[in-house]
């Protein structure tokens, strides 16, 4: 072992990965065990070789924070706050258009953070009794206001423990990310550190444990050092519980002008393990999926099988559905200019299951059927988790 060698560990919702200079191990998590016990049981010898200072861990195993965003328009306050939340690593986001707040049902689960946004600083009397009544009935842990400065005092008076931040919208209707992003990132960080399972991991590391999306995001500007990626690109991380997409800003035609080169988007119910049922549900509701199954030479029965073949097909479906969701066919909160994409990079467990040819086949099917195009972006598989290790190493350099 070289003197500078580090041990990098990524704890996901389904797998954990352990990387040294020599090799990388991936293990399916035992959900009956504490994460540390499971890790030590499977990789104890490797972990024992390293001092606590040389172990760096990132995790998305807390499942991510849930955020409820209340804003006053889709094009500005809700859109900007959603963009900031995704880029802060928040996974589960619901939005409420304030003028119709009475029509929305209350989420049954505890909301980790409520984000209230809207208006430029000179706009007054935006929020009133409808908001306060809704919040009174809502079960939440944190609430933050990042809207019109003229309304801040009002909010402070009526909402207990509300955190007031500078407005995310400036006087020219442009986005100001920094304050809300820092707040949400810190909240995510505290959540990770607060989880018992994660806390125990500090027994093997003396370094801060970071959220995985944060680490991946750090790797994106450096991605061409390890791969022959041509910009603009999208990166798909199809995981057990969610599918993360990181994309070049060049792929979005929109009114959000920021200094970020890349944005992030998450589909919370598209995963091949924990979210398997909702993935199947989404597939059954897509009119092209049956044609895709025929193309893959399988029938609908594959959804009910627990075989390696079924996992492969589900992963192929996940790629197809995600591409649909970010295209004009089924517009999410943004749609990407997919005909301008030069490279599609895939990372996560999917790279261990599907071959480049199998992925290219699905991408070709999508472009032909949905976009009626012969365009074929180059497919790149991050089979060795280089993206995560680049990000983790980059983080160490900055510490």
């Amino acid at each position, binding site marked *: 072992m070289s003197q500078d060698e580090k041990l990098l560990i990524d704890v996901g919702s389904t797998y954990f990965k352990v990387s040294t200079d020599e090799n990388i191990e991936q293990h399916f998590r035992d959900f009956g065990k504490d994460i540390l016990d499971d890790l030590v049981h499977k990789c104890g010898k490797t972990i024992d070789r390293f001092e606590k200072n040389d172990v760096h861990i990132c995790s998305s195993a807390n499942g991510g924070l849930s955020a409820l965003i209340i804003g006053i328009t889709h*094009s500005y306050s809700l859109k900007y706050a959603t963009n900031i939340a995704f880029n802060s690593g928040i996974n589960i986001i619901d939005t409420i258009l304030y003028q119709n707040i009475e029509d929305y049902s209350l989420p049954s689960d505890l909301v980790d953070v409520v984000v209230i946004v809207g208006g430029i600083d000179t706009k007054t009397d935006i929020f009133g009794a409808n908001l306060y009544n809704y919040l009174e009935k809502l079960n939440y842990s944190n609430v933050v206001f990042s809207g019109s400065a003229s309304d801040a005092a009002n909010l402070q008076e009526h909402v207990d423990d509300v955190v007031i931040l500078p407005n995310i919208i400036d006087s020219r209707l442009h986005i100001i990310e920094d304050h809300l992003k820092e707040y949400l990132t810190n909240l995510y960080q505290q959540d990770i550190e607060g989880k018992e399972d994660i806390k125990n991991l500090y027994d093997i590391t003396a370094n801060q444990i970071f959220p995985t999306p944060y680490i991946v995001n750090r790797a994106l500007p450096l991605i061409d050092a390890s791969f022959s990626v041509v910009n603009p690109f999208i990166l798909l991380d199809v995981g057990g519980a969610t599918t993360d997409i990181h994309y070049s800003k060049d792929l979005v035609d929109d009114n959000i002008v920021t200094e970020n080169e890349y944005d992030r988007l998450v589909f919370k119910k598209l995963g091949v393990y924990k979210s398997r049922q909702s993935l199947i549900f989404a597939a059954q509701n897509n009119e092209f999926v049956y044609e895709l199954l025929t193309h893959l030479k399988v029938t609908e029965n594959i959804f009910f099988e627990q075989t390696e073949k079924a996992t492969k097909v589900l992963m192929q479906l996940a790629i197809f559905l995600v591409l649909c969701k970010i295209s004009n066919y089924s517009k999410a909160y943004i749609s990407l200019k997919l005909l301008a994409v030069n490279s599609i990079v895939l990372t996560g467990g999917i790279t261990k299951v599907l071959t480049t040819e199998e992925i290219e086949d699905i991408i070709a099917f999508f472009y032909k059927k949905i976009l009626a195009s012969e365009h074929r972006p180059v497919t790149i598989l991050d089979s060795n988790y280089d993206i995560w290790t680049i990000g983790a190493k980059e983080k160490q350099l900055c510490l």
Partner: protein
Amino acid sequence: MKVVTGVVGNDIHVVANRLMELSLHARGYEVFNLGVNTYLEEFFDAAVETGAEILLISSLNGEAEGWGREVKQLKAKYKYLDNLVMMIGGNLTVGSGHAEDIIPKYKNYGFDLVCHQVDLNTGLDLLETFIADRKITESNQS
């Protein structure tokens, strides 16, 4: 007063847009210029976020023709835009047309003021007259 302005739809006539912004500023308005290639929903949303009293859409070569048809339906979805002054100006038809045909059509789409091939200052004078008249009406009613 606050004005949201911009060029609707797939229209990139940026020079006229900039001239409008400068003229509005010169007349003392607080201007929120959304620029070219702006969708209708963005105009209305900007009016909500800024609390603008006036929405001034510009268009050339009839681009507004298609978008205009959706104005009433879209505006009806907003609960607090009933008093928004809706104005449109520019060349509002494809090819050539007569103002007496074009103006009623756009008024029917939901615009209070329609300026087809009217010069900028004349159009803004009309806006000021309209606002003054509305104020008189409102004060008479109260």
